[in-house]
């Protein structure tokens, strides 16, 4: 589990040990801490919380808040909320897909970028938006995308 925040994960699992009803809470906290849910961790969660592994997998794969694969070094988001949509998010998305070769939810072979579309983040007034590692690039146009992505190694 190199690169994972092991101590943080263990603390969360211990907090909920023996509490099957807290499965989702535990997964939400681990996701917050570690940004993705490694398979070994989900086995540990299943053992500690005394729930079947299949149930852990089912929950973890169903909800968008959880990620089952490690993210690339940089997370690229395009907001597809309604204002961003009205203001041209689809063209922005197409441009990001063209430049990175990634579709929604994918990570490239070099682990550089993970691309995801996402729900409105409340900054509609500066949409459409490109968001890289939590940094917002507001009022984006397809022409400006390349210059933004170039800044990330």
């Amino acid at each position: 589990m190199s690169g994972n925040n092991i101590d943080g994960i263990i603390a969360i699992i211990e907090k909920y040990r023996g509490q099957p009803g807290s499965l989702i809470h535990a997964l939400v906290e681990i996701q917050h801490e570690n940004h993705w849910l490694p398979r070994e961790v989900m086995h540990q969660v299943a053992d500690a919380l005394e729930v079947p592994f299949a149930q852990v997998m089912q929950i973890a794969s169903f909800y968008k808040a959880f990620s089952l694969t490690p993210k690339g070094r940089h997370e690229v988001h395009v907001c597809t909320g309604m204002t961003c949509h009205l203001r041209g998010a689809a063209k922005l998305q197409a441009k990001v897909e063209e430049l990175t070769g990634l579709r929604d939810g994918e990570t490239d072979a070099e682990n550089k970028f993970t691309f995801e579309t996402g729900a409105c983040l409340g900054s509609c007034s500066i949409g459409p938006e490109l968001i890289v590692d939590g940094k917002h690039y507001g009022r984006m146009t397809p022409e400006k995308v390349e210059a933004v992505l170039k800044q990330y190694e």
Partner: protein
Amino acid sequence: MPKLQSVAELEKYRAEILAQRDPAKPCIAVCAGAACDGMDSAAVAAAFVTEAGKLGGKIEVRTTGCHGYCEKGPNVVVTPGDICYFEVQPADVPEILAATLKGEVVERLVYKDPNTGAKAVHMHEVPFYKHQTRLLIGDNPKIDPMRIDDYLAVGGYAALVKALTEMKPDQVLDEVKKANLRGRGGGGFPAGSKWETTKNAPEKTKYVIVNGHEGESAAFMDRAMLTGNPHKILEGLIIGAYAIGAQKGFMYTRHDMPLLEKHVRNALAQAKEYGLLGQNILGSGFDFECELHFDVGIFVSGESSALMRSIEGNPPEPRPKYIRTSVSGIWDKPSNLNNVETWANVPQIITKGAEWFTSIGSEKSKGTKLISLSGNVVNSGIVEVPMGTPLRTLVFDIGGGVRDGKTLKAIHFGGAMGGSIPADLIDAPLDFDGMSKLGAPIGAGGLLLMDEDTDMVEIARYLLDFLVNESCGKCAPCREGMPQMLHILTNMTQGKGKPGDLERLEDLAEVTGAASLCALGKTSPDPLKSMFRYFKPEYEARIPGGSGDK
């Protein structure tokens, strides 16, 4: 900070805070709300802190939640005088500080009317602000959300003090009922009667909950309130708990907003430290705790029963409506859920009274409403106006009309479960019941302008696509009906419409609306219905051989 043991200690502490603050001392409020943050207001705030530091404490700098006029961020407001500077860059900082020291204004950074060039310096002169009644969001520029003392300095927790010392729980409930406060989360249901149901439920253990999920696309005021002034919502919640007799509260919000999480966590910790949460609050004998919970990234978790399942740690699936959460909610205990904005209204109702509150607004919708104004509008942002305000005021006087000199085609309210009305209904008043009758219920308050180029078939397709992805899949009409409607609409947008499509859409809308378990499925055809009502020719034109075939 030692815990405040009584109301007297709180008021003494408040007096000390105020004594240390000189209202004449200049203060720079830099907005760090979601939109300004996206325009790198953090760099502006950092520059102010560095540069003001060199002036030996002559000017104070404060980072705050959303000021409202998000379109023109990063926003800066200088007090005294509420001088508004827009689109401020770090390079502007020394000039603003120098002018502020001399009591002058940096003319090039103030509002300029795009048509006449007329300038507006003070907040009450800026067109975007001057038509508003900012009872709820108006405090945002005065408060650093990380500092409870800022909230106390603007009179925060005075309503709680009044409730605990001067009023019995029943009197608090009566005041909220008399105020006719209606839920701001979409339904417009009277908060007072909901509180009463939970209060009167036989179980002793009761819960109160803040719905801060705000899943409605392009609605952003709840997060702005919760991030920018978390104590206001918490104060409302504690007062509600006192009236209802609840011992525990939950704040439920989005997992994907780091700043929101930070501010709410900090607010809960500070309230606890000050003795405003916990055992024997301010020596009143009233005990109340509050926990923070997060969603799992699915829209339906904002629905009341699904939200409560989620707090229990279960998958957020709605329950049938005949089980009333007010009586049987979290762990089957009576649970009262209200929206962020509903709770935010409570403190002022207690402080200023129901009579004052009902003097604002329209006949059946009282108080103000926060509106997230966006889409093809010139001035996007968060707007607060009295209920009953004509949409024209929102769209033109405040919003500045349609972007890029285009004309208005439609106004959309309420996101994917809302509806669109044509531009010629622009004089309709903002009112729960009136807007519902028109087919565009206010919902949470996301108002979108759509310009002449908007393809209404494509909008219906987009909204349905959103809901198909958000359905929890528990019941068949929603799970099966929506994808079928989506399929037909997708074909229509791709020039593959077939005779009979509109009739099929109407049938599917009927069935899905009638047979779905929760409001997500039930109201999923609403946008489409509003479009059939007002924009049918546009749909007919997509059917070969149809009446509108070109």
